């Protein structure tokens, strides 16, 4: 027998949120001033890099309270490619771009004045990571490339300085997704860089016979990922070998961070393309062990290798433990590894409903965000096939696609109208509240096209669903609080900006509260300090400052 009060709440929830589902979740917006085209420069040579960019970051680089947008560009690819490789990044057409948000929701291109023009002629852009590596209160940028990566220090005055050489984080080869996190809990953000494969334009291959397609990853040798330790003096040390990260080669595309076994140290999940996935358990002593197979997070339910693309490492079923979702190619089902506790995962793609939702699509960036503020994280996937001529090979597949937006109903996902009607070649996607209305928005990048800004107003005017957005302010821990475990009314988020594929989300932590007007907030900081805030009012942007020491 259902408690009468619960029944009322259930009915209210249905009225409040069920109605919202009928309307499209997002409105596709073309904000004034956001003038950017992702130049991937496809050629008949089918150089693999052409189909892989580009990342997007949502960050408040000038701390004015409004999210700004950083977009990574590809570069000019010649047909055939000349050596030495030069992607014409000095040409403004191929610059990465920083757009400052104005108070009226429009954007101003501040790339040049911010010192972010020309990402280096030998670098074909891929992704972006955001983190305050020097704890000065301003988010810094790390841009990955096929070529050399660049670390831009945010000077706090609206400008950035390329500090790559001093920091020693240029990497090389083909870097893809990257992210800042603090693996040794020393209060300084370290840097993880995924690399796709050992490939260059001179050794490109033409696959698909007469169809001439981009080659599958198995055609090229695997390579290692890179872990940089932050020395705290503006320099980093490559600890890939020492830490065990480089012990295994892979074909990495995505990376996610969370402490999956609750031992207080942030672990790493790396999505690999066409092979098993990697779960690096943080041993707490500066080393990592790759445990995906024994933990049940390496392969599909049937023991098959997968084309891992993007990854998100968050708790979808509100059991307090971070789960893993991986986007894949058609004929696979987006992977859902449920964290069962005890360091073990089980594959739950079918139970969560993703069999029907995903088996015909290719996914890239993805996010678990509560788009209807009902207290359950929903799923967004940027979708499009790898091959720009896939229809001629298999008419049942499509190159261009619309994103998947699926609402989370008690851990089962159901597709809803995203509001995006025009199929695009989507790649990157980042999540955040662009207009500070308490509803999570999305910015998605598209090959050869403009970024799509998807604004979420809750699907209706005057919504009663409540929310809370938390900014962590670390003191003993890193200033961004990356790695913190934050619980709000039974929901859990693991603080990170790294998301999906090539992208970085708003570092603020968004929680939907449903009908609750107050919240209990519990934070476990990377320093180990536990902090609890009771009776926090809903519908506010809350800064939670880490206590200097544990209150008793």
């Amino acid at each position, binding site marked *: 027998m259902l408690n009468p009060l619960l029944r009322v709440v259930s009915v209210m929830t249905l009225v409040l949120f069920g109605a919202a589902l009928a309307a499209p979740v997002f409105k596709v917006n073309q904000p004034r001033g956001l003038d950017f085209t992702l130049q991937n420069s496809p050629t008949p040579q089918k150089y693999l890099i052409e189909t892989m960019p580009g990342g997007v970051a949502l960050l408040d680089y000038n701390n004015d309270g409004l999210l700004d947008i950083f977009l990574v560009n590809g570069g000019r690819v010649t047909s055939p490619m000349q050596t030495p490789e030069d992607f014409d990044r000095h040409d403004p057409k191929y610059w990465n771009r920083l757009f400052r948000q104005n108070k009226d929701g429009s954007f101003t291109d501040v790339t040049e004045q911010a010192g972010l023009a020309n990402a280096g002629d030998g670098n074909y852009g891929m992704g972006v990571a955001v983190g305050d590596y020097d704890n000065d209160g301003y988010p810094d940028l790390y841009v990955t490339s096929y070529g050399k990566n660049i670390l831009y220090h945010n000077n706090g005055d609206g400008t950035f300085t390329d500090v790559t050489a001093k920091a020693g984080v240029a990497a090389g080869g083909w870097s893809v997704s990257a992210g800042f996190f603090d693996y040794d809990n020393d209060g300084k953000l370290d840097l993880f860089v995924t690399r796709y494969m050992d490939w260059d334009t001179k050794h490109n291959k033409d696959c698909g016979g007469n169809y001439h397609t981009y080659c599958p990853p198995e055609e090229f040798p695997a390579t290692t990922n890179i872990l940089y330790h932050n020395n705290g003096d503006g320099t980093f040390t490559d600890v890939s070998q020492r830490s065990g990260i480089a012990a295994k080669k892979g074909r990495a595309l995505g990376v996610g961070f969370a402490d999956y076994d609750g031992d207080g140290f942030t672990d790493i999940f790396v999505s690999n393309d066409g092979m098993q996935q990697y779960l690096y358990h943080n041993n707490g002593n500066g080393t990592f062990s790759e445990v995906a197979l024994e933990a049940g997070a390496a392969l*599909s339910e049937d023991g*098959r290798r997968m084309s891992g693309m993007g990854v998100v490492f968050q708790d979808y079923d509100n059991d307090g433990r971070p789960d893993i979702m991986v986007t894949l190619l058609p004929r696979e089902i987006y992977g859902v590894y449920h964290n069962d506790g005890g360091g073990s995962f089980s594959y739950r793609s079918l139970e969560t409903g993703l069999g029907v939702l995903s088996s015909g699509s290719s996914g890239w960036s993805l996010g678990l965000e509560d788009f209807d503020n009902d207290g359950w994280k929903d799923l967004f996937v940027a979708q499009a096939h790898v091959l720009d001529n896939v229809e001629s090979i298999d008419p049942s597949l499509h190159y261009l696609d619309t994103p998947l937006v699926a609402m989370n109903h008690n851990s089962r996902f159901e597709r809803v109208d995203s509001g995006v009607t025009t199929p695009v070649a989507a790649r990157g996607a980042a999540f955040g509240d662009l207009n500070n209305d308490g509803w999570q928005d999305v910015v998605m990048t598209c090959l050869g096209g403009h970024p799509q800004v998807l604004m979420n107003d809750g699907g209706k005017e005057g919504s009663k669903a409540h929310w809370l957005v938390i900014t962590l302010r670390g003191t003993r821990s890193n200033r961004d609080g990356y790695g913190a475990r934050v619980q709000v009314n039974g929901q859990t988020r693991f603080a990170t900006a790294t998301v999906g594929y090539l992208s970085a989300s708003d570092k603020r932590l968004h929680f939907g509260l449903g009908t609750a007007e107050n919240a209990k907030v519990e934070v476990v900081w990377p320093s180990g300090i536990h902090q609890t805030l009771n009776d926090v009012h809903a519908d506010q942007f809350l800064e939670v400052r880490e206590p200097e020491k544990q209150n008793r």
Partner: protein
Amino acid sequence: MTRALLLLWFAFHTPTPEAAEHMQAGMAADKQRQFDVAIAEYRKVTELDPAFADGFISLGQAYMEKHDYGSAIAPLKRALEVDPDSTPAHQLLGYALLVQGYAAEAIPHLERAQEKTALGIAQIQAGQLPEAVANLQAALNARPNDPDILYYLGRASGLLSKQSIDTLLGGYPDSPRAHQAMGENYFVLRQMPEAEKEYLDALRLRPDIPEVHLELGEVYAGAFQWPKAEEEFRAQAKLQPGNAEAAYRLGAALLEQGKVHEARMELLRADKLMPDMPETLYSLGKSASLEGDAAAAEKAWTKLLSIEKESSLAAQAHFGLAGLYRKQGKTAAAQHEIREFQRLQGGSAPPPAPGKEESPH
């Protein structure tokens, strides 16, 4: 074998002494694979003793050993004029004619020699497909797993099938079966919209036509349209409640949609209709595992492993068991299953997802 027959033959037919000398010289040269010398010697034999059939047979055979099949035909025909019942002559002439493309002319000789493989091949070329299938099947019975015979039997069967379908399409183009056949053609060619249309036409004309719902369901399953696939498999299962494949396919389609309990019921039905099918057992284990019935999952996968020990399904069963044991905290058992899984992968990478093998990237 031909050489043995010839030796036997010589024992009963003696040539003139001079011809016999050349015969011996020819055989000696033949043995040393000096075919031109052998041919010259045998030619002398036929000139010295034109009534000696074996001389012509040896001459023809020497040409054939030299791969000069065209030159072999005349002496072999001459041998049969001298001795119409010569089995070696029929056999060699049948081969020579077949190699030269005179299949119809070769057939009576190969029939006389009871050379079923070559006869079947000749009959394929002559368009005598039912006879070819029968003869090649007989040849396969005598030499099981012979790759050449397997190939030609497959080809003969395929051509026979095509012949039959061509007759159907030519004579009854608007019949349900013609639409079904067209649907199957398009399905093989991966032209799925066309296949779907043909199958739907077949069903429109004859809603209870056997197998079409199953085939249409496969079209939808291939396009990941699981609800539609479910509908077709369900229709097939309703038409043919005793069809184990329909029950299995329906169960699999339900499983893909996460309708776990219903899938399990259907898979149990499939297993009852046709017990111990490895595919059914694997999916049955999977559905039981998804429902949290670890004991039933373990039972199904263990049963599968008692039937198949080295296949990819066996590897998947080991992988599934590893997951079960991991959840139960049986670490050692889980590790054992993972090792078995890895062993069956041959230490190499696990297989890609089904259908991905042909799909670029």
